[in-house]
């Protein structure tokens, strides 16, 4: 019987990365994810890994690029302003088809914002952030257990599809301590010898680059191939969760921490005889449009709850069209959404 231990969210990400065989971690301090860097600094020497505090978030994402090109699992982490700095590097990783895991423990923004948890980077994570026609796989944990589980998953997804997988957490999740059963390694093996940059002994010299200047070089073909990959990811890797949706008349849609709060709201509503349910996307990209349609397409009302000014709600509207009325409740400035407000709103649809 695997043992449950009490772990802080940021620490759980670190331990999960080590479980997944990630031995290279490059980062720069930023609140509210500093515990992760401190954890990796202490933990990686145990496994002969490399911890490096870089001079900036820009440097660290580029170190990840170099390490990934060498054929190993590498990770960096930051929080919203630092993730903004990493956008160029993420675009380059995408253009080079290099796998990597990037952890964003979101905080209040825009600008320097504040250091509390928020959900304001949904657009940045799922709609680009960096330049060009690329996508990242975006995973939204809503508990410390999920931080651990999804981090292990992220490395496998990144390697399978040779792309960036992002863990989109927030400051609260990173700081909270909960009971965790640490995941087992999945044991998946990935042979990177056909493309990694290791020196050309025994083979032709090769290079990895995202520059494709001439028509013969085929930037168009490269980008179309990327879209092909993204289609495969969309077909195979969508993950979502439902809670009390089978007979729900009102479906809440939320991710991450907001989904936790919505769960409490669903419980409160059910106790009052209101048939509420929660649809929780776990992959924000690819977005579970079909599952959402099946779950909420025929309900009386949908309420999207986010800790931002309304970001995921756009994807919800796109998925559901005008099949059902869609309302939005959000808090900005890293304020928490409130159970009482959610309950009030849902009851108002009666």
């Amino acid at each position: 019987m695997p043992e449950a231990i009490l772990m802080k969210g940021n620490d759980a990400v670190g331990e999960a990365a080590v479980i997944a065989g990630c031995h290279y971690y490059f980062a720069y301090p930023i609140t509210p994810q500093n515990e992760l860097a401190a954890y990796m600094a202490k933990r990686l020497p145990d496994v002969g890994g490399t911890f490096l505090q870089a001079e900036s978030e820009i440097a660290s994402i580029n170190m990840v690029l170099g390490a990934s090109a060498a054929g190993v699992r590498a990770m960096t982490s930051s929080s919203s302003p630092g993730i903004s700095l990493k956008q160029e590097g993420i675009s380059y990783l995408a253009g080079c088809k290099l796998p990597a895991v990037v952890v964003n423990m979101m905080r209040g923004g825009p600008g320097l914002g504040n250091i509390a948890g928020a959900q304001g980077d949904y657009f940045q994570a799922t709609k680009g952030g960096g330049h060009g026609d690329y996508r990242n796989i975006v995973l939204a944990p809503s508990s410390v257990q999920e931080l651990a589980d999804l981090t292990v998953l992220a490395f496998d997804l990144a390697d399978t599809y040779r792309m960036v997988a992002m863990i989109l957490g927030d400051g609260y999740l990173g700081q909270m301590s909960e009971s965790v059963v640490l995941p087992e390694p999945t044991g998946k093996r990935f042979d990177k010898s056909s493309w990694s940059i290791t020196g050309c002994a025994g083979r032709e010299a090769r290079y990895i680059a995202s520059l494709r200047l001439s028509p013969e070089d085929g930037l168009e073909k490269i980008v179309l191939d990327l879209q092909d990959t993204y289609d495969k990811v969309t077909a195979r890797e969508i993950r979502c969760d439902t809670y009390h949706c089978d007979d729900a008349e009102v479906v809440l849609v939320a991710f991450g921490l907001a989904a936790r709060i919505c769960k409490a709201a669903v419980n409160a509503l059910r106790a009052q005889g209101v048939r509420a349910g929660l649809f929780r996307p776990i992959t924000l990209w690819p977005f579970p449009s079909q599952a959402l349609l099946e779950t909420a397409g025929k309900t009386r009302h949908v309420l999207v709850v986010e800790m931002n000014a309304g970001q995921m709600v756009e994807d919800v509207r796109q998925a559901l069209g005008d099949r059902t009325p869609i309302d939005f409740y959000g808090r900005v400035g890293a304020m928490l959404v409130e159970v009482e407000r959610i309950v009030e709103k849902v009851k108002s649809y009666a």
Partner: protein
Amino acid sequence: MKLVYDRTLGLKDVPTHYCPGCGHGIIHKLLGQVIEELGIRERTIVVAPVGCSVLIYNYINTDGLESAHGRAPAVATGLKRVLKDRIVISYQGDGDLMAIGTAETIHAANRGEHISVLFVNNAIYGMTGGQMAPTTLAGQKTKTSPFGRDPAEAGFPIRACEMLATLEAPVFIERCAVDTVRNTLRAKKAIRKAIQNQVDGKGYSFVEFLSMCPTNWGMSPRKAAEWVGETMAAYYPLGNFRDR
């Protein structure tokens, strides 16, 4: 007759896109020769910058990895930390190394990363059509200093070797030029030392080359070579700044 000077196997046998008289061609050739002579071709990785030499991986006959503008030392760090026994060379121009990449340049040097950094200083931004660089000389006319660089507005040109020489960790720092045969042969020795240091596991090495950019300086290659020797070298003295 015996062939005593041939094209090196360290270079791919292809024409380059560089302008006539560009210093990159000379430096690439020296680098290729050193790689061949040290027998390290199969374990060398060149990290490419953004700038005229963005396509260096098409010319040097080793594995290559592109990096974003200025990030080559960070990318090289990631590579070398994983592949400790490979020879990782970062090859950069003045914008890459001393404008956008200043932080990466200083910190890779400060950490003493076991890489060899080759800095091609032609006092201008070549690829983008001749804008002012951090190393453009005072009074030098460029597309973005059309009346001559004014230090009161744009600051003074930065001397990379002298700046890095204030750091503890680097084991080799030298400034060379490729304007004359004599200087070019010295430059080759410096490249060899910089790379041998990595082979020997000694630490971080840095070589700066004063190099010609005839096209953007608006000079013939001959005049450009003279300008390197007479004008550039007066502000950027050639010589060694660290040799442990």
